[in-house]
C-alpha cells in the first residue's frame, strides 16, 4: 500500500539540505523508507544541492592537504557499503531508520502507560532538536483536540486514524505546523502505532483537556 499523505516540499528541502532538526529528520526518514513518491522528490532536492555545491567559489585548502590525501588513498581499497536492507517480510521489524533509536522489533518495545488507551515508548538516548517518541493508541480512541504551538511530524506505522486532514494509514505522514488544531480518532481494528516528533509541548483546547495535559506529559 502506497502512502497518500506526504512530506511538505519545504520539509523535503530542509531534509535534503541537512537543516532539519534530528528528531524530525528521523520521522522524515521513516516516511521516506516507506514512500517511493517522496524518495523521488528528495532526489530532486538533492540535485539542487549538487548544483549549488558545484557552483561554490573554490576555497583554499589547508597546506599539505593534497599530499596527505594522496598518501592516505594508497592504503585504501574499494569497499562495498554494508547495506542494511529493510526486510519487508518480517512484520515484527521496525522501519530501518527507527532501529538505532528504539531497537529492532515492535515486540521488544518498552511501552509505558500515558493515559487510558495511550502508551508511549521513548528513545534509548536523547535525540536533538525535539522530542521523538513512539505512540500506541487503542482502536476507536480519540485524542483531545490539540495543537503543538510548534511543529509536529507523525508517521503512521500500524493501524490508522482520521482527523480533519483525512485518513492516515501505514506509511502516511502528517507534517503539521503550530497553526493546526487536530483531533485524531483512531480507526477500529488494531491499535494505531506511530512515530512522532514535536518541538514544543502539546496545547490542548478546552479546560477539560488542559487538565489532562500533565497526564500526557508530551
Amino acid at each position: 500500500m502506497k502512502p497518500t499523505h506526504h512530506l511538505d516540499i519545504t520539509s523535503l528541502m530542509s531534509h535534503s539540505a541537512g537543516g532539519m532538526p534530528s528528531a524530525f529528520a528521523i520521522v522524515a526518514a521513516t516516511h521516506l523508507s516507506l514512500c517511493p513518491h517522496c524518495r523521488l522528490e528528495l532526489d530532486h532536492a538533492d540535485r539542487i544541492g549538487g548544483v549549488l555545491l558545484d557552483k561554490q567559489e573554490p576555497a583554499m585548502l589547508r597546506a599539505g592537504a593534497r599530499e596527505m590525501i594522496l598518501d592516505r588513498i594508497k592504503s585504501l581499497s574499494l569497499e562495498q557499503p554494508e547495506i542494511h536492507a529493510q526486510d519487508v517480510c518480517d512484520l515484527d521489524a521496525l522501519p530501518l531508520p527507527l532501529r538505532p533509536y528504539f531497537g529492532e522489533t515492535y515486540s521488544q518495545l518498552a511501552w509505558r502507560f500515558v493515559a487510558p488507551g495511550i502508551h508511549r515508548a521513548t528513545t534509548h538516548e536523547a535525540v536533538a532538536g525535539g522530542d521523538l517518541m513512539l505512540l500506541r493508541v487503542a482502536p476507536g480512541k480519540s485524542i483531545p483536540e490539540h495543537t503543538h504551538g510548534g511543529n509536529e511530524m507523525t508517521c503512521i506505522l500500524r493501524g490508522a486514524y482520521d482527523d480533519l486532514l483525512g485518513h492516515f494509514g501505514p506509511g502516511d505522514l502528517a507534517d503539521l505546523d503550530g497553526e493546526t488544531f487536530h483531533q485524531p480518532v483512531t480507526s477500529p481494528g488494531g491499535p494505531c502505532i506511530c512515530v512522532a516528533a514535536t518541538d514544543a509541548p502539546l496545547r490542548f483546547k478546552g479546560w477539560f483537556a488542559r487538565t489532562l495535559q500533565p497526564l500526557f506529559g508530551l
Partner: protein
Amino acid sequence: MIRKQVKSNVVDFSVKRRMPISPTTPVLDAEYWAAQIDEVARLRDPAGFMRIYDHFAPRLSRYLLGLTKSQEVTDELVQEAMLRVWTRAGSYDAARSNVVTWIFRIARNLYIDRVRNEPNWCAINEGIQYLDEMQTRFGMSTTESFNDELILQNAINALPALEARLVRMSYLEAKSHSELAKELGMPLGSVKTVLRRAFIKLQFAMRNR
C-alpha cells in the same frame, strides 16, 4: 587538463544545437566527471582521483565551511568526504545520479553524522538509497541524465532574487526554516511559501527536460 573523450549517447542533438559547446559546458562536465569516477573505480589510479580532488575539494571546503563555521572541522570533513569518493567509487551509478549530486550527498551525510552527531545517519541514508536503487532496477524511478545538471543550473539562475537567496541560504548554511525566518525578519509562513514556489519551478524544469 586533458578531457577524455566519452561516449555522448545521452546528450541529444537538439540540446547540443541550442547550447554551443565550450570546454566548460556543464553537459560535458557531468559526463567527464562520471567517466573519471568510473576510471577510479576500475583502475584505482591516484592521478585520476586527484583530478576529481582538485575540482571538488575546494568547493566542498567552501560548502562545508558554510555549514560548520569551523575551518578545522571543514578540513577534516573535506578529507573524509574525498576518501569516501575513493573507497566508494564502485557504488557510484552514473545512470542514477550525476557526480555533483553524489558528492553532495556524501558531504551532507557526513556533516549530519559528525557535526550534528547522528552517528547512524550515513547508514540510514544508504538504506534509503538502496531502496531507490531497487526501484530504478525495476524501472519505477527516473534517472538523472548529464544535461539535467545544465537544465537545473539554468533554472536556478532564472529564479527571482528572493527565491534564489532563500534556496541558497537553506542549502549552503543548513539552517532550519525557523532560523531563516528569524534572520530575515520574515514570518515563517512566508519563508515556506517562497521556498515552495522556488522548488516547484525547479522541479518543473527537471521534469520537463
